[in-house]
Every structure is written in C-alpha cells, then in structure tokens.
C-alpha cells in the first residue's frame, strides 16, 4: 500500500503503464475490461471445478465422492458462480472494452463509477466464495426457493452468504447498467446514429435495459428474504398467510430477463464475428436490431413458464406458454439471419468463427428443447429432470459460452496486441465441441427416462448409467478443451504473434486504432458515415448495398444498391460536431494523451474504497446469524460479542463507504491541464 501513497498523481508518461497501482487505481475502461475478463475467467474455472466434481459424483450409480450436503453446495455454487461470477462479468468485460471503442468514444460516461462496478463485483465474488472456508457454502439452489431458504429450514450462514453476496453483485450490475446506457446514448462519435451502431453495442444496449429493470425486482425479493431471516418479518411465512409463490414470482420476473442478460451479449459478439469472417455485411441488420428489442420486451412476459408445475391454473399456464413460444420467433430470425450472412460469403474458419458457428448450431438445439417445454403439458413431464439441465446447458454453454469464446478469440488481439495461437485454438474448439455435446446431449435422454435434477446419487437399475457415464466423460473432455484455451491465453500474452490494428479485416471502428489501443482510444474522433466504416475505406465493394452517407451528418441521402432511396435524418445534428473530429481514418501513431493534449480522467483508488466499505457493511449481518445461533445455544457472552462485531462492521463499513464516496464526488474527474 505504501507504493500507492507515494506514487505520483500522474502515471501517464508511458503508453501502457504497469505496476499494481496502475490496476488498482485505473479508471480506463479498457483496463477495467481486462480486469473483468481475467477475474471472470478465474471464477469460470472455479465453477468448472464444481461441475467436474458433480459429474465425477454422478459418473456411476451410488456415487460416494461427496455427501448429499456437499453436493447441494456444489450445484448451488456452480449455478450461482457461472451466472453471476462468470458469464455476466465475461459479458461485462466485453461491454467495458468494446462499447467506447465501437461508438468512437474516449471512455465510458462515468469512468470512476465503472471502476466501482468492477471492485464491487470482485469483492462480491470473493465474499460469496469465502463461504467455503466456513463450511457454509450456499446450498439452496441458484434460485433460492422459499421456504427452503427461510431461517426455519436454513438456519445457518450459508443462505445469508448467498443473499448478501447477490445484493452486493446486484449493485455492481446496476451501476454498470446506468453507466453503459448513458455511454451508448450520449457518447457516440459524430455520424454514429443508432442504426449504424455495431450489433454488439446494440446487444449490450438492450442488455443494460434488462439489467436496469430486472435487478431491482430481485433486490426487493432478497430484501424480503433478508428481513424474514434477520428481523422476523412474514413475507415468506405461509403460516402468517403469505403467498407460497411470492418468491418464485419475484425471482423469475428477474430470472427470466436474466437469461437474456446472459445470452444477448453473446449474440452480439457472434454478430460481429460472423460478418467479419464471411466478408459480408450482417444480413438484415434492422431486423436483427428489432429482434433483440423484441426478445428483451417479451422476456419480461414469460417468467411463469418456470412455474408450470406449481399449479397456477390453465389460464396462466396458457398465457405464459404462448408468450414463451412467441420468443422463438425473434430468436429464430436471428439464427436464420446469421445463416444468411454466411450464405454466399467467402468464409474463413478461424477459431473465432468456429465458436460462432457452434453457437448458431448449439443454441438452436437448446432453443428447440426450449420451445418443447413452453408447452405446459410437455413441461410437466420434463420439469425438474435432466432434460431441463440439457436444455439450459445448450443455451448457456452452447450459446453464451461459445459466443464468449468466439469473442475472446476475435478480440484478444485488440485487447492485448497479440494473436492467440490458431492451432491451439482449433484444438481447444474441437475438444470443447465434442466434450460439450457428449456431456449435455445424453442428459436429454437421462431426463426423459426420468432422472431428476439435483439428486446426489442414483440406484443402478434405472437405465441412466450409460448416459451418466457419457456425460461425465464428456465433461472431462470439455474441461480439457477449456484448459487448452486457458493455456493458449497465458502463452499468447507473452509470446503471441503481434497483431496489427486489424488482423481480421473487420469492419468496425475499434479496428481503426492500434492494438492494444492507446489510453485515449481515438486521437481524433472519426466521423462515421456507415455501419461498416473500415470496409468503406478498405473494401468498398463489400458495403455497396449498405445505407450510407458520405456527406457527414447533415445530409443523409440513403443509397440502396447504388440507387438513391430517399433522405433521412442522420443524427441529432446541432450537437454532433466536435472540435477534434475528422473524417474516417486509420490511426497508427503512438502518442501519449499528454502529448496530444487530450484530457484524461485522473487515476483514483477511491471507488475501490467505496466498494470495500459497502461490501463490509453488507457482509456484517453474518454476525447477526452468529448471534442467533449463540442465543439458541444459550451462550449470552458469544451472542453479545457477535452483536458487537455486527455493529463494528456495519458502521465501520458505512463510514468508510460514505467518507470515500464524498471524497470521490468532491474530487473532479480530471485535474485542470490548461
């Protein structure tokens, strides 16, 4: 910490400063993206280890590797980790790194808030996993259904760890949501109107709406649970007249948008990858935009399809069945548009493209099984069986993770300046592809044969043995494939071939600047005249049929197929001129921000302290649980010392948070350079 205190206020003389402080105090969206990426990959491996232990336990009948309680902890932590600590932050890594680059901005709207989001995520993830050290890992499922998770049935700290860490992680997602919404709406380069935004930015944009509107609902559901557990309220106490389905409704009103929060960014990534390696503009761009919006909108109206088995009655079941089937339409449109983009293109099957095509294929399988249990009668047969497990792993691993790996292979050169090894990448892809299908496809069968989810062992005569053995072998192959990619990343960080600005011949703004980009991103903000500005410069024939304006913002004569197709408004014109804007160009010079006179936000560690204070404050109720346990045991001394600890941590955390928050808000973003 001494280095932090003595470090100079400006560490900006080098292009890419190193050292601990340059990471702890960074407010650069690219560095924060890198922090998200590597932290989330770490948690992805943790969740993977949990999955492997689960598969080892289920490899054969009557598994003896872990006991029932440990098994409950494993599947709960596997689900929670993969959703909140792996896929969401992996998406956030791309949001951070790519959104400002793709819209032609120098940073996000609130750089320090962005750092805050990362630190809250990190502390929340650590806090949740600390539970293993206390032998109190959450064991109520990632969905945390009441009444199992109420104090009566889960008296220990495990559910408290789960509830409190989800509250902490929610703050991270919400803060990032406000930040990215503002960034995308307000920080676009001149000419970057909404219908020219890269498809990843569109996916990210809509995802932020989902986060901002869905997370408050689970916040309240968790607040009710916290109050029930700590203050003895009655929200989930059916003995007091509470509705036994309240938690399920609130959870899934959040939980279903959440699955689109997990998949839409991956859709966005493959929508960047496929056109690049097919050398064709994305087929049906406007329809792709509208289908994302429609998926998100419908995503708020389908939550109860997770609850067909609870007996809501035929009317509710029918309505939610129909809305669920409706979602297949915009989703199917996306699948067909990706295929149409590839059709007739000059395809290059790089590793990124392989992963992207795998998403199209595997997500379709998961989508089809999804439509199957949109029908309540079919769902009643499938619910709580391994068929459901097969379904959501096809959409989450076959969909989200394949898309994210496509994104990693595609953007690693932009992020680090070095290429990943293609032979290793392809080896990793095929290993993962085989492993993933061998793991999850047999689960359809074991599910249809009646194998329930969440059982920690099964008898030998059920007809499930072969399918489970196949799944387990598949999971080991899958793990090997993931590890090859991890090795590829570690190796290429040091010794990968240098990537230029644009190793793939990609069409969007982020490829017009050096890899890794300088801290200010764009020395001169480009004026954007089409969806594919780099192809306009390098390969104009590719974009002949894309609507354009070459006159900047003011006149927006739209040409389709080379013929004038009318005039439209390009962008909110009066405000869209910046002093340093310039025509679309490629930047190769390496100047520092100071040499160029570009004001950059000062580095600051305050967001880290605020995040730490908040985490300590929100962690403090664990000592209330200790107090309850001590009271039950009749140990008054232990109860009162636990109570003291609660107050110390709660107030100490609050003081740290508020003091550093004031410190942050009263310090200007950047010191005056002029």
């Amino acid at each position, binding site marked *: 910490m001494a280095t932090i205190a003595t470090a100079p206020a400006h560490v900006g003389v080098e292009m890419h400063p190193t050292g601990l402080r340059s990471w702890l105090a960074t407010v650069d969206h690219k560095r924060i993206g890198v922090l998200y990426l590597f932290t989330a990959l770490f948690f992805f491996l943790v969740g993977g280890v949990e999955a492997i232990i689960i598969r080892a336990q289920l490899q054969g009948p009557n598994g003896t590797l872990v006991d029932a309680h440990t098994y409950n902890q494993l599947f709960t932590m596997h689900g929670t980790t993969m959703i909140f600590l792996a896929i969401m932050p992996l998406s956030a890594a791309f949001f951070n790194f790519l959104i400002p680059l793709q819209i032609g901005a120098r940073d996000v709207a609130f750089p320090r808030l962005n750092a805050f989001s990362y630190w809250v995520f990190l502390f929340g993830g650590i806090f949740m996993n600390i539970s293993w050290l206390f032998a109190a890992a959450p064991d109520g499922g990632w969905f945390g259904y009441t009444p199992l998770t109420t104090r009566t049935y889960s008296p220990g700290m495990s559910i408290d760890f789960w509830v409190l860490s989800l509250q902490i992680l929610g703050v991270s997602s919400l803060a990032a949501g406000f930040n990215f919404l503002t960034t995308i709406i307000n920080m676009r380069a001149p000419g970057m109107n909404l219908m020219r935004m890269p498809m990843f930015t569109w996916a990210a944009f809509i995802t932020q709406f989902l986060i901002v509107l869905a997370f408050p609902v689970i916040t309240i559901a968790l607040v009710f649970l916290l109050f029930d557990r700590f203050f*003895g309220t009655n929200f989930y106490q059916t003995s007091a007249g509470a509705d036994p389905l309240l938690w399920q409704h*609130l959870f899934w009103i959040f939980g279903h948008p959440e699955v689109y929060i997990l998949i839409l960014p991956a859709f966005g990534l493959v929508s960047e990858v496929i056109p690049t390696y097919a050398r064709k503009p994305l087929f049906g761009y406007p329809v792709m935009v509208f289908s994302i919006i429609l998926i998100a909108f419908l995503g708020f109206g389908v939550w109860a399809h997770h609850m067909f088995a609870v007996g809501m009655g035929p009317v509710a079941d029918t309505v939610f069945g129909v809305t669920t089937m409706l979602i297949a339409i915009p989703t199917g449109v996306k699948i067909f548009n990706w295929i149409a983009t590839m059709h007739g293109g000059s395809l290059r099957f790089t590793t990124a493209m392989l992963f992207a095509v795998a998403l199209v294929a595997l997500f379709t399988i998961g989508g089809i099984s999804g439509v199957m249990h949109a029908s309540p009668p079919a769902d009643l047969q499938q619910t709580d069986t391994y068929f459901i497990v097969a379904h959501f792993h096809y959409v989450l691993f076959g969909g989200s993770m394949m898309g994210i790996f496509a994104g990693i292979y595609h953007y690693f050169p932009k992020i680090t300046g070095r290429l990943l090894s293609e032979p290793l990448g392809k080896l990793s892809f095929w290993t993962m592809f085989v492993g993933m299908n061998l793991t999850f496809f047999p689960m359809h069968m074991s599910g249809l044969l009646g194998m329930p989810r969440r059982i920690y062992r099964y008898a030998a005569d059920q007809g499930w043995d072969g399918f489970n053995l196949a799944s387990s072998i598949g999971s080991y192959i899958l793990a090997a494939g993931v590890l090859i990619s991890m090795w590829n990343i570690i190796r290429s960080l040091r010794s990968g071939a240098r990537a230029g600005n644009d190793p793939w011949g990609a069409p969007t703004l982020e490829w017009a600047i050096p890899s890794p980009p300088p801290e200010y991103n764009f020395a001169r903000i480009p004026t954007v005249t089409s969806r594919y500005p780099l192809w306009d410069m390098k390969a104009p024939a590719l974009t002949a049929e894309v609507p354009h304006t070459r006159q900047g913002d003011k006149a927006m004569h739209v040409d389709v197929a080379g013929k004038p197709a009318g005039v439209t408004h390009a962008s909110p014109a009066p405000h869209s001129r910046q002093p340093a804007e310039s025509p679309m160009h490629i930047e190769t010079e390496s100047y520092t921000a100071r040499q160029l006179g*570009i004001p950059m936000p000062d580095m600051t560690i305050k967001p880290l302290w605020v995040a730490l204070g908040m985490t300590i404050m929100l962690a403090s109720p664990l000592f209330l649980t200790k107090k309850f346990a001590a009271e039950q045991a009749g140990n008054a001394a232990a109860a009162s010392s636990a109570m003291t600890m609660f107050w110390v941590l709660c107030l100490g955390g609050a003081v740290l948070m508020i003091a550093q928050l004031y410190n942050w808000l009263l310090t200007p973003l950047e010191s005056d350079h002029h």
Partner: protein
Amino acid sequence: MTSVPLTAAHGVNDAHSHHHTSTGLDNKKLAIWAFIGSECMLFASLISTYLIYKGRSRVGPFPHETWRDPSTGRVFKEILDIPVTSASTFVLLMSSLAMVLALAAVQNRNVPKRTRGERILGSSQLWLLMTALLGITFLGFQAYEFTSFVREGLTIRTNLFGSTFFTLTGFHGAHVTAGVIWLLTLLAIDRKRGLGPRDEVNVDIAALYWHFVDVVWIAIFTLVYLIK
C-alpha cells in the same frame, strides 16, 4: 491512410464529456433518468407485494378496520391515521415546490435582483434549506407514525400488513433521508463557494430525484392509505 498530421493542436481544444454529448443532454441527467427507471421497478415490486398481501393477514391490527383479538379480547382500532398522513403528504408536496424554486434560483443566479421579494425567491440557499427542512418534517411525521403504530401493537413482525407496510414506507423514508443528505450537501457547497454553472446539473438531478421520491409517495398515499 492518415492524411492529416497529428499535432498537439488536435487535442487541445478537444472537449471532454461535459461539453459534447450525442443528445446534447448532460450525461448525469441521462443517468439519473435510467436510475429513476430502475427505482420504478423497485417500488413497483414493493407496492405490488403490499397490494397482493392486502387482506391476507391472519391477525390484526389491520389498516382500515378494527380487530378484536379472540384470545385476549383486546380491541385494536384501525391503524392508519389519514388526517395526520394527509398533513405529511402536504408537507412533502410543498417540498417539491421549494425544490423547484431552489433549482430556478440556481439557474437564474446571474439575473439581477432588485426587490426584497426577488432576493428571497432568488436565494438558492434558502430554498435548498427549505426543501431539506420540509423533507425532515416529513420524516418526523413518519417517525411519529411508526412509533405510534408500534405503541398500538403493530410491528414489522406482527402480520403481513405490518411487514409490507413498514418495509414499503421504510424504503420510501430511506429514500427521503438520502435526498435530505443530498440537499444538505448541496447547501453546504452553496454556502462554501456558491453554486456555479457546473453545479446546475447537480441541482437539476437532485431535483429530479426529489420529485421522483415525491411522486412515489403520492402512489403510496393513494394505494395504501386512501383506498380501503
């Protein structure tokens, strides 16, 4: 490909985010609207839970009717005191008026004030203080209400009504508290160095937040107190 040579001149007058945005709106203003959208879902969840649980409490006291405890024979009268809450609602509504005047005073700080009335209307410090004081008065009403309910036998643990009522209005009160702290901070800055052009948007977003919290209270007052 670069045709224009890069020099320091390119960046010197390059404005950062406070001068240039795609929509012309300040980033903070967009962010507070996104935040308010999120808060709508937060309060929607709280209010719907209250409404779903309305009338489901197994034991009293109840909001709008008296209840006789069958085991003890004790009679609990209806808990909600609409005249008192109408007064606190009026106070909160007036605080929004004061907030409007505070923002106007900050925005028109350079307009010369000739008469005493103009000076009063144009005093941002006065109206920021007034808004905060009205907010504190509202919180005082709430503290009185909560303690009298507890005295009458309704706590957060008593029944579903108690749990939902105290959580919903408590969340609202916490929001008012945060708003009061925000206003007092702005007041302190105003007293220390005066609010300048860059602070306009800071008062503006505080006002948006304050009005939002006020609007939420109107929904709560109508749905919880007035509708039986």
